[in-house]
């Protein structure tokens, strides 16, 4: 079945089964591989994208359900890695292996959009669904606070 998805502001026509997870449409059909596959059951968060600004797990969101909505992936968060979260992530050298970081960054950006100066407990609850095996959590926390400052200046 063919339908149109709006991804990072650009319409893409795809011909897949409507129940296909958005993750695989992004990666295999569109070629946007910055969004990662981790668990397939919405437990690790590496596949997180924004739909109308809200963070969702693309591995457990059907492509058809995203029709008519604005999908934003890590590639579309900013044109030049200049989003405050991305800048803070580089300054704090948050990523180690980096595989989970697209999801972490999308979750952090969504958090800051609704809570411009989040508390530690707000950060904890927003980021709890995102696993990082390298253990970058302490730097993620610091970088989110730093990004909040960057966004205000």
């Amino acid at each position: 079945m063919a339908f149109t998805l709006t991804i990072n502001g650009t319409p893409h026509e795809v011909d897949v089964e409507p129940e296909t997870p958005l993750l695989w449409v992004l990666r295999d059909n569109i070629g946007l591989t910055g969004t990662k596959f981790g668990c397939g059951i919405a437990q690790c968060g590496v596949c997180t994208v924004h739909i109308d600004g809200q963070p969702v797990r693309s591995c457990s969101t059907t492509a058809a359900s995203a029709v008519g909505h604005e999908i934003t992936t890590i590639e579309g968060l900013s044109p030049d890695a200049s989003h405050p979260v991305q800048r803070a992530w580089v300054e704090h050298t948050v990523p180690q292996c980096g595989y989970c970081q697209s999801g972490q960054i999308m979750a952090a950006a969504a958090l800051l959009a609704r809570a411009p100066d989040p508390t530690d407990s707000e950060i904890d609850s927003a980021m709890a669904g995102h696993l990082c095996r390298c253990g970058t959590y302490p730097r993620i926390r610091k970088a989110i606070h730093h990004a909040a400052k960057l966004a205000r200046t």
Partner: protein
Amino acid sequence: MESQGQTQTMVSRRAVIRTMIGAGGGMILGFHIPGALAAVVAPKPWTTPTDGVEINAWLALDADGTVTIRVPHTEQGQGALTSVSMMIAEELDVPWDRIQAVFADMNRHVNDGEEYVVTSTHGSQLVRQQHPHIMQAGASARERLKEAAARAWGVDRSGVTARQGTLTAGNRTASYAEFASAAAAITLEREPAIKTPDQWWLLGKPVPRLDAAVKVDGRAHYAIDTRLDGMVYAAVKCCPVPWGRLANYDFARVKDRRGVIAAIEFKAVPGRTENSDMQNGVAIVADSWYRAKTALDLMPVEWDFGPDGDVGADTQAAKAAELLDVTGDVSNETGEDTLGLIAASGRVVGSEYHRPYETHARMEPINATVSVTLERVDVWSPTQNQATPLMLVAEQLNRDPKDIHVHTVFLGGAFGGNGGGATAVTRQAAEISRRLGRPVKVIWSREEDIMQDKQRAPVYTRLAAALRDDGLPEAFFSRSIWFTRDAVGSQGPATADRAIGTMPYRVPNRRHELHNAAAHIPTATHRAPGTNQNGFIIEQFVDELALAGDWDPLEWRLEMTKGMEPWQRVLRKLKEVAGFTTELPRGEGMGIAVLEDHASYCGACATVSVSRRGELRVEKVVLVMNSGYIINPRAAAEQMEGSVIWELSHALYGGLALERGRFVNNNFDSYNLMRMPQAPEVEVHFAMSEDGWWGGIGEPAGPPTPPAVANAIFFATGKRVRSTPIGRHDLSWSQGSSAQVMIDATVGARHAGDPSASPVAARVARNGGLLQ
């Protein structure tokens, strides 16, 4: 050396403070290397670099001053791109902001004299073991550039200086690039020595890792991101019980589904039981991975689980209990009759500990992309050693290694699991591509990734010691049972004896025994192999000994490592910075542990709180590292911080559940790992010996944390947690008096020398294995 050591410690401490206050201060980079953020990872570091004049395999100089460093190791977030570039820049003496790091050409390495010497990233050994030949490559290039200038200018090489990319002799100056071609043709009569640490200008400074920038916008290319023209996708299922057989599958039921192309069966080769060998299984190939995976899930598959289909954790526990009463292989024996002394002693402490199977669960699921054509074979594999899949694919396809091109990409975590243990997938991809004549990407589902992983081996250990009048041990016995696939190789005795068999504490009479018991579950290295399992055991048991002997745990360790400089340095620093005390109110506790791993010495002090209902919170972990020397304290601190979270994940939440021959908790809903709300504050300190030896960084910081946490739990609750996951223990406590009274109540009976008061000590005393 002492004054140097102190200087290093001070520099390191400032580095730590910078790391810690980065967020609050808003600026991370307070150090004095100009353009520190301008060094880069090339936009496509996995493509073969062609720019610039090659001086040697490691580096090329471009006319615009760019220095391209070719890194033969995998970047898995441990900082290989940065540390190799730093070591070469140090010797070459070029501005750090002109560095561009790329991945080296593995085909050239394998087929052209192995110029990079070692390409594997394992064993925390890149810097500690490879700095001599890597720095040598930079030093040699520098001297050849000087020689080229000297010849052109008619002066002696000793009259030419090479600093920050500029050659100078008298009033003549030139950029390195101007003499690059001439230098490339020069062979030196004698290669220069590498710099000593007192000559470093770059090494030892807190340099931000180069790979962060490409990992914030989706640009970093991992093996799983590979896309090729005409590529197909495969999902794979192997027998959930390792070494079982594929009895039957009904491809006809799914072959007409949209996009489905083929079913391909994999057969284990009889007698081939290496971790890199294929298991019996079946793949569905389709035009998208989702279609392949869906068809595979719908396809009826029958397995013959074989003789191991009824093995469970209880089976292994029963086998371990049996073996714990039987004399094992003696791997360490000193002094007199250890067992006899313990049996005859009136003051015995004894315990048994257990740690279960754990999996690697790196965030990038196991995958491989292979394109087989008549002319060449291209491979993208998530591996800790790019040379490994190259040789495996050559063997699998019976092709000349010259035809195989492995493209180094970023690796989404490995932790010891992506050496030979992860390469069966590359064989699978090679097989499918050969049979279909098309490029294929194979991805294992998370469930497959965990069930087919080569796991951390489980261990059961019994320990017993007899105490002297001064409370210190006079005899110390331990017996461990390890379950490994074939009881050899990296999971053999050398690994199984780490930390326990090789404990540093000098006891006059000492005996350690090992049973390496065969099991069908394949095992492999797992970040700090051996030390991670055994460290939890030994560093809790010595706390039991210290408390039974009326010793403060920190003072006990200082006493028992007297004269051992690396240990003393760590323990003294820990004492100075951690504020360790046994005098906290009930419900709060601090615990310490110290372990050697990969030639580094690392101490941990954990602070925990436990509610009366038993809810545990690890508040803070203070680490002290002595790796001899350190080339990048900032990257080291980041790795150590992460190591704490890695090890605590397994100790608090992990534990693979072995039932009916397979692991049943095989995704993140049931195999739990530490998440941000549970992550403790981590504080890192360095205490370097700077005494001629080098230790690793990537692994040694993990193992001391779980025993430090468990020791802290004991002080908080009076409960000794002798197995993991800790989260499954009931840590609740009721009102009592001070911590000291509680300790006396817990260990007092043993202290009084009455074995019957302690079931384990009693068992030790009457155990035939101990009394024989």
